[in-house]
């Protein structure tokens, strides 16, 4: 092992190198060492049967710290909906094509269905539930209401989070730009005209 990795605590599925060495010392040597060594992911190359273990992750969600221990397969979308009881972000296609799951992570709009929750260590996540200040709606929420920017409402949380991201990014100068830069959000009710009006109102405010 090269010197650069010595003494560093590695995030290896919950067991750091330092903790691991401590465990090894506790158990002792001999036959028990081999299976223990195999659990030290990333330290010993050549082992191809390491188990998948849950991972603990802490992220800020709508301003509050949340610590979760999760199966590594859980997406950010499923963590929000199923573990944190925040069902505002919607599951549409679950493949990044419809935009219903759009949330803001560290201020940028992303598809939460294509993002692993365990990748969110230290991230700041904002969902539709976190946009309003108490009873005061976020300007984009108010504009969607005013302009009737929805019909069934299923895509709306994703549309609003995406629109908030679009305004912050600042690249949309024309109606055509807004349409293009909202193309990651599909509305099967076809409220696009009113969504456009809502976004323009917030942009011009």
């Amino acid at each position: 092992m090269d010197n650069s990795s010595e003494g560093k605590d590695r995030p290896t599925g919950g067991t750091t190198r330092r903790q691991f060495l401590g465990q090894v010392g506790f158990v002792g040597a001999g036959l028990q060492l081999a299976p223990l060594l195999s659990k030290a992911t990333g330290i010993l190359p050549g082992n191809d049967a390491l188990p998948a273990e849950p991972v603990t992750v802490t992220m800020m969600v709508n301003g509050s710290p949340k610590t979760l221990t999760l199966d590594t397969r859980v997406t950010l979308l499923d963590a929000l909906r199923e573990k944190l009881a925040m069902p505002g972000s919607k599951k549409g296609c679950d493949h990044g094509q419809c935009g219903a799951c759009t949330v803001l992570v560290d201020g940028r709009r992303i598809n939460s269905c294509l993002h692993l929750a365990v990748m969110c260590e230290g991230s700041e996540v904002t969902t539709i539930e976190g946009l309003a200040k108490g009873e005061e709606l976020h300007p984009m929420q108010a504009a969607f209401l005013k302009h009737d920017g929805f019909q069934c409402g299923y895509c709306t949380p994703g549309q609003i989070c995406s629109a908030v991201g679009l305004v912050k990014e600042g690249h949309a100068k024309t109606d055509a730009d807004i349409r293009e830069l909202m193309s990651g959000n599909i509305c099967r009710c076809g409220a696009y005209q009113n969504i456009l009006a809502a976004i323009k109102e917030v942009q011009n405010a």
Partner: protein
Amino acid sequence: MEPFRFVKAQDNLTAIRAAGINQAKFIAGGTNMLDLMKLNIETPKQIVDINKLSLYKIEELQNGGVRIGALVKNSDLAYNPYIIKNFPVLSEALLSGASPQLRNMATTGGNLMQRTRCPYFYSTDFTCNKRVPGSGCAAITGYNRMNAVLGTSDKCIATHPSDMCVAMAALGAIIHVQGQKGARAIPFADFHLLPGQTPQIEHNLKQDELITHVEIPALSFATKSHYLKVRDRASYEFALTSAAVALDIQGGTIKGARIALGGVGTKPWRSLEAEKALIGAPANAQTYRAAAEAALAAAKPYTNNAFKVELAKRTLVRALTTVEGMS
């Protein structure tokens, strides 16, 4: 999705070491990887999260080139003022791909590594030599409207889906990688592989090799460059055909040209034949059409995609005409 072990790498060496074991895959943006994992098409036993690595810089090089960190997001690269000014073809290509959300996630290195969207690759109900080597290609005899006409083999006719890569092919990018045995630089043309008899092998990276950055060498006339993408709907759709074009026109004569095509090839398709037809010739419609004919001379259409041959020619002619207008 199959279970996998999750490792968060803190530095390049940790990432490279963790990638060498457990059939590992790196994850950066994850937009294509997770999509495929949900369908059990990718089933890595270990995922190595590389997002903590320091590969986020876009560095202007003194000679006029640029060095792009592997983790630079597609959106950050597309809107970078230096890229917009000096390599507009790259910015336009990036902005024509995917959606704003996906561009906020997808990285430079990940875009290079994305896999084909051929529907037969995506559906485990059909045979696919990329997905299950030796099982057969359902696209050759199936509905192949979106498939390739250049670089195909009797094992695979899938198109490479990237727009960014078409621009990088035209610009002659160099891909820098690091592995347990050291670092190396791979010319863009050598990075992606033709399907041949082994379509499951799509690039020449080794299991433990990490893309660290992509270098775009200086190309003064790239300020006059353009990416044109033709597709079934106006946005958020893969290319039927596309063209990345840079031209150096002096006194009505073409002194330099860079041409690459998308949507038609099994890999990002640099056309040296088209460049040869352009360089030294007068900048006019006749020359552009001759270049387009040269670019598609080797095209082999299938049942449903013969239209792509003429469409690709017209796409290239239109892109060349647009760049001529910039001069």
